[in-house]
């Protein structure tokens, strides 16, 4: 067993806190749309040692050679590190290198799954950039789950130093009925630029709960993208605290559910200081009996004058039995702001479909092109090409009957 990440006191506190809080239930406002009973009723155990990544699917996930540094974990246990890194960048394992900043941002007093993670985390990535370092390329952290009744609690800490710039991709995938409970803390110091991707394409019988906790200081710029494609029951939380003046934040999400998947996206953006801007766009595509949730809150505090905030959730329902609960919320505590929010729910539009078909493209293929098109508003903005490829593959695997395989597509 690898050594624990946290000092014993924190672990014990967090464990105690989880005991007190217990598993959340839909009676709690924060968990209104999602029942975690399927997770809580299983007797989970940790993997003692690293399994190997199964043959199937794994080559697709591997971005070694394209990533600057790649860390791979199986069931939360470290497997490999590849890549040379870059000047001003340090990528290490939290099991080997501790940071005083760890557990300072993700709250484990009120968030049961963060408490559970903090009590049980054994390893994860620590990514630090020096002040002024502009890191070209991206860092990839791959968490692979394998087997049944196994849980893992990945923990990551990303510290972007003043005026530094970096891109981090986290991929979650696997095979089996496992449970991943991940927490990532991102700290963007003054003027730092962080582009963060979380790609959740877990096995179709796996459970995934994850929190991205973002802390922004003055004039920092963070883009956090969350893509959820796989998993039986998924809860993705992104919480951002804009703690300095002039920060900008973009939260972009894409969730794609089929079968009887349940994908819950919860975001909280806390505007605490003046002159900050947040742009949030989450798009959902739901088929079969899948259920999606978008529960987004933007809080503009008393001291956050000149805030600009836009929050949008757009959903595409492909079947009559798919369900979306969309709840964008603005809580504004001062007058000097420009904020708007909204959500849409719809089917594929008739006009574009007719247009494509009138050129000879078959109905199924035309529908598929339009489904990709709906997703592309998020995907095309992604700067990391291997991520775009991964998402298109994952989408195709998710709904092969709906989507044309995009061989040789230029984008």
């Amino acid at each position: 067993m690898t050594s624990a990440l946290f000092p014993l006191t924190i672990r014990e506190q967090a464990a105690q806190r989880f005991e007190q809080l217990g598993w959340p239930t839909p009676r709690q406002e924060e968990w209104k749309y999602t029942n975690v009973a399927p997770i809580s009723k299983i007797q989970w155990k940790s993997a003692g040692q690293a399994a190997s990544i199964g043959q199937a699917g794994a080559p697709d996930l591997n971005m070694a050679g394209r990533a600057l540094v790649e860390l791979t974990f199986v069931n939360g246990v470290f497997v490999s590190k590849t890549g040379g890194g870059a000047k001003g960048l340090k990528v290490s394992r939290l099991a080997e290198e501790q940071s005083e900043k760890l557990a300072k941002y993700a709250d484990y007093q009120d968030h049961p799954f963060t408490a559970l993670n903090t009590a049980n985390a054994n390893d994860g990535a620590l990514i630090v950039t020096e002040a002024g370092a502009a890191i070209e390329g991206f860092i990839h952290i791959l968490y692979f789950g394998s087997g049944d009744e196994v849980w893992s609690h990945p923990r990551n800490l990303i510290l972007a130093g003043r005026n530094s710039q970096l891109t981090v991709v986290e991929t979650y995938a696997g095979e089996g009925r496992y449970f991943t409970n991940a927490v990532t803390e991102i700290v963007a110091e003054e003027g730092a630029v962080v582009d963060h991707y979380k790609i959740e394409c877990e096995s179709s019988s796996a459970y995934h709960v994850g929190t991205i906790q973002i802390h922004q200081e003055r004039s920092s710029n963070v883009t956090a993208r969350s893509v959820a494609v796989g998993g039986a029951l998924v809860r993705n939380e992104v919480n951002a605290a804009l703690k300095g003046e002039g920060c900008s934040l973009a939260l972009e999400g894409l969730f794609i559910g089929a079968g009887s998947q349940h994908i819950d996206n919860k975001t909280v953006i806390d505007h605490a200081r003046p002159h900050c801007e947040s742009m949030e766009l989450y798009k959902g595509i739901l088929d079969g009996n899948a259920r999606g949730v978008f529960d987004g809150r933007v809080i503009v505090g008393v001291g956050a004058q000149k805030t600009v905030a836009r929050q949008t959730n757009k959903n595409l329902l492909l079947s009559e039995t798919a369900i979306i609960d969309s709840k964008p919320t603005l809580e504004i505590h001062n007058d000097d702001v420009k904020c708007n929010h909204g959500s849409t729910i719809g089917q594929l539009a008739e006009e574009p479909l007719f247009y494509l078909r009138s050129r000879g493209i078959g109905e199924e293929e035309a529908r598929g092109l339009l489904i990709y098109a709906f997703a592309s508003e998020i995907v095309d903005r992604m700067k990391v090409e291997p991520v775009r490829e991964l998402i298109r593959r994952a989408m195709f695997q998710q709904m092969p009957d709906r989507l044309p395989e995009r061989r040789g597509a230029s984008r």
Partner: protein
Amino acid sequence: MLEIKNLHAGIEGKEILKGLTLSVGTGEVHAIMGPNGSGKSTLANVLSGRPRYEVTQGSVTFEGKDLLAMATEERAREGVFLAMQYPVEIPGVNNIYFLKAAVNAVRKHRGEEELDAMEFLQLAREKMKVVDLDEAFMNRAVNEGFSGGEKKRNEIFQMAVLDPKLAILDETDSGLDIDALRIVAQGVNALRSEKHSVLCITHYQRLLTYLVPDFVHVLAGGRIVKSGGKELALELEQKGYEWIEQEAVAAR
């Protein structure tokens, strides 16, 4: 090539075409003119199978086959092309990718080998020149952010690439400046041959001076009320439609 007999059709329970009969032979260019709301676009839409239009009576055959029984994409694959009056913007669908899929769907239907990326690009480049579209347009989303004139030229470009047997142009000339108009006409004339037919819906004589139709028809009140040669278009431009409508009423 195209035989329309006693066509009655409408939308949302409202009958718009009321017994339209028209025959377009192979290699012919026909112009259809008529007042606003007379049913010109309805005819174009019914021929291309736009959803929600209902045919209540009559028949349409294309090269002897029942056109109305075919799905929209089948009609396109058989060689019917509609340049739309209002081309829709489709964000997220790449122009070149879309058109390649379309070309290959048509080729497959004809039993021809599908084009690979290089072959297709070569074809596309060649046709782009005809309509004077910049290559940058190819990599944009279908019609997204295109000006009115660019959308129309894109329609003609698609037509040129798909090489249909029957091209239906629904007011492709409307709103075009003289240069764009000439380009559109050039695109259509390039397609013209003894194997290709054109059905050109327009309000103006302008395009017809470049296209020179074999026949001109007036559509009013859901029927073809007058047919003639290319001179008819000139006459219509000078005198309007009223005299024809009166003639039609008197003839009953």
